[in-house]
């Protein structure tokens, strides 16, 4: 479980996140939703340690993370897998080398063990046999799946995904959602997904945290969100004609 307590973050004196209290639960897909500029990406970057927090605590299974200096965060960081919006794969490495990279850096596995692990995670994201391809040879959806495979390479306890569906067609986006959901269940991870894709919200939102103007505005799940009477959330979720029809 990841716990965010009384989080406050500002840039140049302008508050971006104020008094955020959230618990991301193990074995569930925890979604952070909100409009562009609401602070959800900042929240995720605070959670993974890319932004220092001004006030508050972020802890992983009771272990304080935000209060640790960068050097001492390494142990917890190695339990995290992060899927960046653009994939952030290393261009000069093949798919296999990308996935092997964290193992090269932090384990003493033999080459055979590493290759087995690469094949295992690639099979899990349905990309078996792409080991020798370079990122430039992959489609957007495949890039995201390789990035997921890399995030899984060290068998993480916590998986973060920043807008995993952005730039993908609806079919591929759904496949990524299903994959993240299935992997969360299979490996019993605490998965945190940043999204404003309503299909994701309605399909895999086991726990949804709505951030509005830097504050935690609403919490619930994909069933409760359909019945909410919160006006700001309704305006956000049912902004399109299609979602309004679904609500009716």
């Amino acid at each position, binding site marked *: 479980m990841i716990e965010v307590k009384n989080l406050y973050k500002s840039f140049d004196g302008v508050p971006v996140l104020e008094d955020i209290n959230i618990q991301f639960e193990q074995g569930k897909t925890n979604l952070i939703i909100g409009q562009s500029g609401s602070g959800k990406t900042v929240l995720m970057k605070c959670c*993974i340690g890319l932004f220092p927090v001004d006030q508050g605590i972020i802890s992983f299974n009771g272990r304080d993370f935000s209060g640790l200096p960068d050097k001492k*965060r390494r142990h917890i960081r*190695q339990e*995290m897998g992060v899927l960046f919006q653009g994939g*952030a794969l290393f*261009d000069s490495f093949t798919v296999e080398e990308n996935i092997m990279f*964290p193992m090269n850096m932090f384990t003493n596995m033999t080459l055979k063990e590493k290759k087995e692990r690469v094949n295992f995670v690639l099979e899990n994201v349905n990309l078996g046999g792409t080991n020798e391809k370079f990122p430039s040879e992959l489609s957007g959806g495949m890039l995201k799946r390789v990035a997921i495979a890399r995030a899984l390479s060290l068998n993480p306890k916590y998986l973060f995904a920043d807008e995993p569906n952005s730039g993908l067609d609806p079919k591929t986006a759904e496949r990524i959602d299903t994959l993240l959901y299935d992997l969360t269940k299979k490996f019993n991870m605490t998965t945190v997904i940043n999204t404003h894709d309503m299909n994701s919200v309605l399909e895999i939102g086991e726990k949804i945290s709505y951030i509005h103007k830097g504050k935690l505005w609403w919490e619930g799940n994909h069933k409760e969100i359909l019945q909410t009477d919160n006006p700001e959330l309704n305006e956000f979720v049912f902004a399109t004609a299609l979602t309004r029809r679904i609500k009716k």
Partner: protein
Amino acid sequence: MKLFSEIGEYVLLILQAFKRPDKGFVFRRQLWTDLKQIGSDSIGIIAIISVFLGAIMAIQLAYNIDSPFIPRPIIGFATRSMLILEISPTFMSMILAGKVGSRIASEIGTMRITEQIDALRVMGVNPANYLILPKITAAMIYFPVLVTFSIFLGVFGGWVSGSVTGLVPSVDYIQGIREWFVPFNLVYAMIKTLVFAFIITSVAAYRGYTVKGGSVEVGQASTNAVVQSNILIIIFDLILTQMLLT
């Protein structure tokens, strides 16, 4: 004020880069790649420019030294001395600042804007150490080799042009390049080369690492890396010359 802040940032980044690598074999593999990209891939351009510069210098010296009281071997001597003291270490470093520096700045800058550096940090890797240290090490190993190569090719270019044009007889040129040799001049050239190698790679890495924005900013970082490296090369050339030759 901005200058001081940038110098501070640069120093902190280089200190981060000079930490002990996490895994020796990963560092060695990265170093091997950088030796190829920074060193081997620059041999062609260094060879062409050195041969032509040596040739041009020999012709220009012959053209300017037409007094019968000045012995012809002076042309070979002057060509060699200029190549060792200035042309090969300084001019070639400026060429390498353009080729290698821009490449490093744009490579690291692109990694920054595509979140690859963030990915390294999140994994618990020290990105400065992983990305910058092998590049600085590779340049400091390979640049002296390239400069030595440049000196030999420049001297060879002068000999070819002098002989082919008939301006400098081969015997006189060879006598000139063998006379009045001061071994310390080579040491001076190598010290300068090492300092310039450090400047080129570290400034370019800093510019790339601190990019904010998109492709336009990566382009700007690349240009700034080359311009600032060249200015620093000239400044340090003067400082080192004053320190080592006077």
